[in-house]
Every structure is written in C-alpha cells, then in structure tokens.
C-alpha cells in the first residue's frame, strides 16, 4: 500500500504542474497576477528550470559527494555556445543545442579528468578549488571578449533561428512547457541511474572511495562519468535558460551562480529525490520575491539596521542557508521525517535508511570490519 503511494507522488506532482497553465488561481504574495498570466508563467518556468539544474548539480554533490564549485561553467557553455552557433554559424535551434551539448561534454571530460585525477590527496577541498578556478577562467573569458560574448550586457537571443512558438510574451506558456520537460528529463535520468546498479556504486564511492576501490571498482571512471553527465545536463539547462530569459547573460558564468545551485540543493536536501527540486523552486521564488520586497516602500521607510539587510536578497539567503545547515541538517526534505521521528532525527534520513541496502556496508556489520578481524586474530 505504502509503495503505491510512493509511486503516486511523482504522478500527482506532474499532474499539478501540467494543470498550472490552465489555472486562473490567484496566489497573493507569490505571483502578481493569476497563475496563467505570462508574468507568473515566466517565473514558474524559471523555478522549474532551476529545479532541474539543482537536480543535475546534486548528481555530483549529493550522490557522489563531489563538491564542484564550477557547475556554472557548463550552464554558461550551453547558453553561450547555442546562441553563438545560431548567431554566427546560422544554425537552427535544434542543431545549435546539439552542438552546445557536444562542446559541454568535451569540456567536462577534459576538465573533469584533470580535476579528478590531479587533485589526489587534497580530496574534496582540492576538487572544489580546482573546479572553481576553471569556472573562473570561463567567466573571465566571457568578460574579456565583449565583441563575441557581449561582455556585461550578454547576448540577446537570435529569435529568427528559434521556432516562433518560443518567441514573444504570448508564447510564455510554451517556455513553461519547455522548462517542465527539462525538469522531467533531468529527474528521469538522475532518478533512474540512482536506482540502478550505477547508483549503488556511486553511493559506495560517496561513502568510502578507498573501500570501493579495494572492491575492484574504478571510482575515477564513475566520477568522471557522473561529472560529464552533470555537465551535459547543465548545458541543456543553459539552452533552456537562454530561451526562457531570451538571452545569454554573464550571470550564468559566475561563481555566485554555482553557489546558488549549492544553496538550493542543501536547502532542499542533498542526496534525496525531491530535495533539489524543492530547493530549486523555493530559492527561485524567494530570490524573486525578496527582490520585490527590497524595492518596496515599506522597506525603504525602515531604520537602516533593518533596511540594509532586507534590501539585499543575498544577505537573507546567505543567513537562511547558514540557519538550514545548523538547524535542519538534511534539508527540508528531511524535515517531515525529523518531525515525526521526534528528537532523535539528528542524522538525515538517507544515512540511516539507505546504508543497509548496500552490500558493502552490510559486510562490515557481519564481521569483515578490520578491527573485528584484528581482535579475532
């Protein structure tokens, strides 16, 4: 019975998302107009897009324990190379998208191999620093070549190469469908792989890389594969970002963009199914609403001590992020279980629930732990 309910959740969520463009519901405080107005649909499309990007990022962060600080690079590669291919090579959107994804796959293979292979005993932290440095190089490249990339202005979408269904305010609903399709594809790929044998190996590598290696698995291959997959999914998201925001913006190249993805994932709950989706939607909504609050009259009349933090969405999001790390380890997705489980829920659910599914960990409990072997000798 419970299993049926579990399978029904994605269906129910999808049904709600499919019906939103037909809804005339008013949600004051979240959307300015009814849900099916172009303004609300645009925001919703961004929410779904960032949910998809967060799920792709969590493939590295939550599933493999790889803290990449350079994921923005692949989103930017997607957006910029698709736009440049349409503008300079005069390719139609579909071919430009394929080209962008191919470039992202090549770049992520190269840089992923360098950062994974070379980091060695610096571990997580070395990987974080190196991916950050590579992404920064991309950001510099975009900033220093304004003739090609438009510099700080970014590049407007070459609308003549894009199917007319994706152009113009009247067609905002199609952008919503596109973003929803992206989210469904990313979730489909990531969830399916996580449930498969590959996902088990990922988990073994995340929990203990050395042990996985001793078992005869090749962590480097699996990590690189996941890195390339995350890169290509990110690039596809970059193309969607290009269409939804009608242009390639330099914001997609910055470290802050990656950090936003990291905040989404941790906020929602890393390594879980719904956490990154929830975090992506929530962060995007908060970011937009806080931006609106910041410019409102009620904030402008506050004393400086309150006004200044409230006028900067990043201050609030940063503080919220720190609070979540402290108060809700495991993110919002772990919250219901923690509340139900009472005070004993310090550890996020995946650590308690999923470990024994892995043969690797189970062996340990049955006496192959080195300490026990030593004491038996």
């Amino acid at each position, binding site marked *: 019975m419970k299993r049926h309910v579990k399978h029904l959740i994605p269906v129910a969520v999808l049904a709600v998302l499919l019906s939103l463009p037909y809804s005339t519901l008013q949600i004051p405080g979240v959307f300015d107009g009814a849900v099916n107005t172009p303004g609300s649909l645009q925001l919703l499309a961004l929410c779904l897009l960032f949910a998809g990007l967060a799920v792709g990022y969590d493939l590295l962060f939550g599933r493999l324990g790889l803290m990449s600080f350079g994921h923005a690079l692949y989103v930017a590669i997607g957006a910029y190379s698709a736009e440049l291919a349409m503008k300079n090579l005069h390719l139609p959107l579909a071919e430009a998208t394929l080209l962008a994804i191919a470039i992202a796959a090549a770049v992520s293979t190269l840089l992923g191999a360098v950062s994974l292979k*070379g980091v060695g005993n610096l571990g997580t932290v070395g990987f*974080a620093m190196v991916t*950050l440095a*590579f992404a920064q190089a991309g950001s510099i490249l975009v900033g220093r*070549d304004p003739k090609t990339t438009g510099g700080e202005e970014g590049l407007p979408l070459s609308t003549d190469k894009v199917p007319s269904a994706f152009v113009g305010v009247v067609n905002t609903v199609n952008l919503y469908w596109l973003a929803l399709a992206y989210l469904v594809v990313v979730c489909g790929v990531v969830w399916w792989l996580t449930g498969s044998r590959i996902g088990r190996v990922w988990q073994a590598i995340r929990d203990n890389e050395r042990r996985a290696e001793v078992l005869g698995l090749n962590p480097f291959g699996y990590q690189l594969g996941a890195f390339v997959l995350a890169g290509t999914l990110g690039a596809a998201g970059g193309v969607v970002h290009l269409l939804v925001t009608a242009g390639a913006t330099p914001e997609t190249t910055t470290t802050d963009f990656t950090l936003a993805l*990291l*905040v989404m994932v941790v906020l929602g709950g890393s390594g879980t199914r719904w956490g990154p989706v929830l975090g992506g939607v929530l962060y995007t909504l908060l970011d937009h609403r806080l931006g609106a609050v910041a410019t409102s009259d009620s904030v402008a009349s506050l004393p400086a001590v309150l006004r*200044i933090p409230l006028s900067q969405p990043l201050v609030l999001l*940063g503080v919220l992020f720190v609070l979540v*790390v402290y108060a809700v380890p495991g993110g919002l997705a772990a919250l219901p279980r923690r509340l139900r489980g009472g005070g004993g829920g310090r550890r996020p659910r995946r650590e308690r629930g999923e470990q024994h599914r892995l043969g690797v960990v189970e062996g340990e409990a049955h006496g192959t732990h080195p300490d026990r072997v030593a004491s038996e000798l």
Partner: protein
Amino acid sequence: MSTLVLLTLTGLGLGALYFLIASGLSLIFGLMDVLNFAHGALVTAGAYAAWRLTGHLPFAVAVAAAVATGAVLAALIETVLIRPLYSRPKDQILVTVGLGLALPALVQGIWGADARQLQAPKQLTGTVSLLGAKVPTDRFVLIAAAIVVLAALKLFLAKTRYGLVVRAGVEDRAMVTALGIDVRKAFTLVFAIGGALAGLAGALGGVYFGSVSPDQGTSLLVFGFVVVVIGGMGRTDGVALAAAAVGLIQQFTNYYAASGLGDFAAVAILAVVLLVRGNGEGIQRIIRRTA
C-alpha cells in the same frame, strides 16, 4: 629593460597580495581541514575598514584597523559558527559559503555596489626609479609586507609553543589531541591569523588597485585558491613560491600575450601542475624531484 623591471616588480607585488591571502587559507586548511570560503569576505571587510579610515586617521592606523577587523571577524566566525560543526566537516565549508555570500552583499547594501576610491597617502602613490623604470611605490610596500609576514609566520611556527602545536596539528591532529593538548585554541589562533592577513591583503589591495569594491575579495580568493593548490596545503614556503610564480606569470602574459590572458595562464598552470604532480603534495615535491 625598464619594462622588464616594471613587470617583474608589479608581478611580485600581485604575488605578495596572493601570498597574504593564500598563506592564511593554507594554514587553516592544513590544520583544520576547513576550506574557508568566507576568506574573500574578510579581505573585503579589511579593505572597507581601511577605506573608511583613510583621510580621517594616519594611513598606518587605517591598515592596523583593517588587520584588526579581519582578525576579530575571523575569530568570531571560528568560535561561533565553525566550532560547533567539527563533527560535520562538509557543513563547515557550507557555513563559510553562506558567509561568503552574505557578508559582501551586506557591504554592498551599506556602501553600494560601485568601487570606492581609496586615497592612499602621498608616500605610497609616487613612483621610484629603479634601473630606468618608474615603479609605483606600493609594489615595494606589498613585497616588503609579504616578506615580513613570511618571516614572522616562519618564526611563529618554528619558535613558539603555539607554532609547535600548529605544526604538529597539521601533521596529525588526532595524535596532538590524544597527547592532551587543546587544539581548539590553536584553531581559533590560526583562524585569527588568517583573518588578520586577509584584512592586511584587503587594505594593501585597495592601495594596489586604487579602489575597493564589495566583490574584490572574492575575485582575489580564486587566485588564492590557485596558489594554495599549487603551493601545497599547510606549507608556507611552497605557498610563497607559488604566489610569486602566479603573480609573475600573470603580469608577463598580460603584457606580452594579450590583456586578460594572464588570468587564463594562472589557471592553465594550475592544470599543468595538477597533471604533472599527480598525487603529490605541492610544488615542493616537484622541486625535490628536479633537485
């Protein structure tokens, strides 16, 4: 010849700035395994402290205030936010990420997003003629500051009791704790030293660039990371060498190749070093191998 001198000294000046940032980062990581993402925010805080006070007080006082701001902020961050999370290393990094986002945004909220001009005293804004080149004085100040800091750090690590604890902690933290030494005091101390150096880097960086801006610290932090990875974690000598190398290569590439390519070159060196060294522990291993 004069171009060469100017480029070398400017590159070394930039390297000195990187060293001030990276030496703190590398000590913190070496001892505590914490990647301090808030380090850039400390640089920014120091820069703004110096900017607020220059013109009102002697410049030396402004720099001292920047150093103090960095140290106090870092000590606060360590004791209040990092210390409760010692059993959750990944969450420590996440907390510093949150701070790294919030603090520069707060600075931006108070003083605006635009760069603010830093009016350095006359003695620092002039130039010195050396071998036919007119070198801005602040380059020498930066290099001198980095040399003094390097010497002081080495003295501290080699001669003092806390330096001994820090060195031992970098080697094997569990053993030091098992011997009954309270490593946590050393943690706070190292964090405060790192913060003080970040504050100093902020103030001197303000002089070097002529202005301060909210995201200045974070963009410098990236090169701090590059230097730390090349130089090796917890190795002050390696970091100093790597900082000088990165600064020089950046300046020379910017001049002889194309402007902007220097930043690229710094990252390219990082990739090369990573590939060449494989599992090594920094530039020191390469030196040992070639020597």
